[in-house]
């Protein structure tokens, strides 16, 4: 999975309340730009990364992510 595919999956799975209307997602996109980057959203990322990429994250590390690049680095893509 490349980063563009990950961004697409991220939006589908987390199902944010408001559609992301910002510019094209890049590594520098702050996660806070998504309408509700909350504990539920992080738990969903935790789940789909485990299911699709067979990789177990840690919520403490997830909480530290500020940008999309932090997240993709954590996931390892």
């Amino acid at each position, binding site marked *: 999975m490349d980063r563009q595919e990950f961004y697409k999956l991220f939006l589908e799975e987390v*199902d*944010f*309340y408001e559609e992301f209307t910002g510019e094209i997602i890049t590594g520098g996109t702050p996660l806070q730009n998504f309408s509700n980057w909350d*504990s*539920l959203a*992080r*738990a*969903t990322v*935790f*789940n789909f990364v*485990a*299911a699709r990429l067979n990789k*177990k994250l*840690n*919520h*403490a590390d*997830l*909480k530290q992510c500020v940008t999309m690049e932090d997240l993709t680095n954590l996931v390892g893509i």
Partner: protein
Amino acid sequence: MNALIQDVAIKAIAACVPKNEVITEDKRFAKLTGIKARRIAPEGMNASDLGLKAAKELDLKDVKFVIFCSQTHDHYIPFVSNWLVKELELPSDTGTLDLIGGCAGFIQGLYTSFSISKTMNHDVLFVIGDTLSRTTGEHDPGSMGIFGDAAAAVIVGYEYMSDTEFSLNSEYSEAIRMTGGYNDQPDKQKLYMDGEQVMDFALMRVKEMINNSMFDNYIFHQSNMMILTHFKNYIPDFSNMPVNIDRFGNTSGASIPLAIVTENVSGFCNLIGYGSGLTWGNCETHIGESIQRIFVEL
């Protein structure tokens, strides 16, 4: 700790939920947590009322001990277990014990019930229930919408050639905490939960209790669907994993017996609880096809 208790088994289970059903209106929340509806106790209805209603459905003629387990006792004294003895018109030579237990409370209370039944050779009535919905609110957005109210009553007693294994574990953590104790006065009971910390804990610790024995069913505490989805991947293909969180939400300690009743579970079962404390434990036991499973509403 681990323990094997022989010649004792679950003989009957009744579960009771409030009639009042609240549908989850937040579609995103419902999709991600799997909680589509919950039963919420109206003002004035306590965990003890739900437990009493369930207990009245059972055959109590050989009961010589009553245990009540909750995090939301009506009051600390007099004990709810004593109130149950009175309301159920049991004799005064009935032993009583109130326990404080969270989402692993069913395993803790069941172990206590099995131990007492084994030593006194009579039935134990074990009642577990909570009205956690009224301890959540704006003070802790992370726990809002998760908890439903419910209680269950279980008869534990003699069963020839029955083997049951228990495992109970603990570590101190404030990931889940409830105010309302002496140091918190004059606060009312309020629940605070760090859901992410709890999820990490559950996925790490519960995995330890999943072995590949030939269990017909793995009945997990119904915490939320995100956690249960992980557990589904851990268990063997031939085992079932009953789920009812979509209709009742997280009903804390009552969730396992409620699932046994609503999903009509029987056979060789691994019951797994995990939650506040932190505590986690499991019970490997046989649940007979013919035991009573009763569902009632109040």
